[in-house]
């Protein structure tokens, strides 16, 4: 009897079975977890409802900020005045927290239209328009300040207000959720 327990140098067929069974259980378990985790992701209806939307710009007066929704997310469409455009362009880009020239944040030839996501990049509050030191936006929650190009200029927000994907279908109409194909 004692002999059988002392000689264990060679892996046996039973050891192989233990390891193979254990590995199968781990892989099987992980595979079973996958659908449950995936069910948490945005579902098909939500994705379908996130198709591009058209916005007519004609009713938006100069100096006005209009709020629209795309994919449940708030988007600001700002018809900038000449002074606001100038203020956004006359900035030393290198001094910014998230350096971006104003020209990179608007479409060429449409500098009067600034289209940005309307949730603060800190924790998602809605900043108030035409307020704060740079008369861009001011977030009332934690004090982030944005300029007339939607770039962060103060407070805890780490990056500029992001630009949603959009394209100009004509001079007075944009499609949000669709990039120019050219």
């Amino acid at each position, binding site marked *: 009897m004692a002999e059988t327990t002392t000689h264990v140098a060679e892996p046996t067929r039973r050891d192989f079975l233990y390891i193979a069974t254990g590995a199968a259980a781990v892989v099987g378990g992980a595979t079973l977890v996958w659908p449950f*985790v995936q069910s948490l992701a*945005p579902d098909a209806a939500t994705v379908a409802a996130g198709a591009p939307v058209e916005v007519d710009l004609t009713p938006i007066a100069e100096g006005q900020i209009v709020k629209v929704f795309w994919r*449940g997310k708030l988007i600001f469409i700002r018809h900038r005045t000449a002074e606001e455009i100038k203020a956004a362009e006359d900035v030393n880009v290198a001094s910014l927290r998230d350096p971006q020239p104003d020209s990179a944040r608007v479409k060429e030839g449409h500098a009067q239209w600034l289209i940005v996501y309307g949730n603060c*990049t800190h924790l*998602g509050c809605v900043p108030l328009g035409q307020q704060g030191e740079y008369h861009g936006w001011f977030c*009332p*929650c934690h004090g982030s300040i944005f300029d007339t190009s939607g770039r962060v200029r103060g407070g*805890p927000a780490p990056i500029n207000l992001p630009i949603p994907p959009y394209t100009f279908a004509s001079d007075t109409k944009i499609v949000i959720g669709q990039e120019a194909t050219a």
Partner: protein
Amino acid sequence: MSDHPTTYVPKSAFGKWFESRLPIAGLIHSSFIAFPVPRNLTYFWTFGAILVFMLVAQIVTGVFLAMYYTPNAGMAFQSVEHIMRDVNYGWLIRYLHANGASMFFVAVYVHIFRNFYYGSYKAPREVLYILGVIIFLLMMATAFMGYVLPWGQMSFWGATVITNLFSAIPLVGETIVSYLWGGYSVGNPTLNRFFSLHYLLPFMIAGVVILHIWALHVPGQNNPTGIPIKSGKDAVPFTPYATIKDIFAVVVFMIFFAYWVFYMPNYLGHADNYIPANPAVTPAHIVPEWYFLPFYAILRAIPDKLGGVIAMGSAIVIWCFMPWLDTSKVRSTAYRPLYKQFFWIFVIVCFLLGWLGSRPAEGWYVIASQICTAYYFAHFLIILPVLGFVERPLPLPNSILESVMGVQKGGAGIPAGANAEPHSKG
């Protein structure tokens, strides 16, 4: 519950038959009847029982609310108003539940600071204590998701701010957030899953509470002297002494609870939450519930998104390391003249942080939050370790009995056998 061999012997034939198959009566007898309790416990030690009561109260009121509540973004707000106006006594059940959350946190904070003051977290109670921190974290998650359910303005924006904390995680943050939301923003799928989890988590809390009580019954309770039970004279049996005292404390706490429910049921809430959720407008001033304010102040004190989130998380996680950060051999602050002062400074700093969390993030409030946050962490990382080496504690009494009755001479004080002597921990 653990190494206290029960002397319980069932009297009836059925009792004997049942006990030999499921020894639950013996378990209850050894844990809650014969269990030795230090004779010098104060009312600060009744908050465990108060917390058990609050957990049960929240589950019972919550189960009834779930019968009338609709977890749908289009109907949730209406269904809460339906509970308030149409359901018989719905107003009472909802106010009990909403204020019950606050009362739960009142009790848990007393419980936590009692633990800090008397060094209950030190060996041999580290696991017991860390289980308590886990319960606290589960309570925070449950309370947060519960506050989202009425789908008012504070619900929606609170959910937006808190879920966005996860977007600070590098690389995978945005993905995690969309998996939390079940969409591209806080919406109906978010409300659905929060309701599901809000219903689940209290039962997980109940499970960890059982472990917490189990871990408590291994070393037994700490006490105001911090010294262990050395003989039967240091202790009294749980029943009737602790049982009656706990019940009395729970009743007094219920009066306190009822005052809020019946006289100022909305005082601890926010008026903005009676406005239906509107994703286009942020309330002028977003503040969390009062019990999250100190942590919220720490979050806002750091002028960096990821840094703020890390600081806020660390503010709680650091508690888990207290048994090892505190180098003092003496448990009870009653015998630590220096630490006593630092303890109360710490309490004041926590209240200050709470107040700062309720202020807007501007001007000197930000600087004050930063100073308090720095002190908060210094308390754990510098003061606790250093004091253990430099402080000269006061002499400890020889026993719990001596601390209560004074030094006894020649055993003339208490006649032997005058107390019912429970099992000694030795």
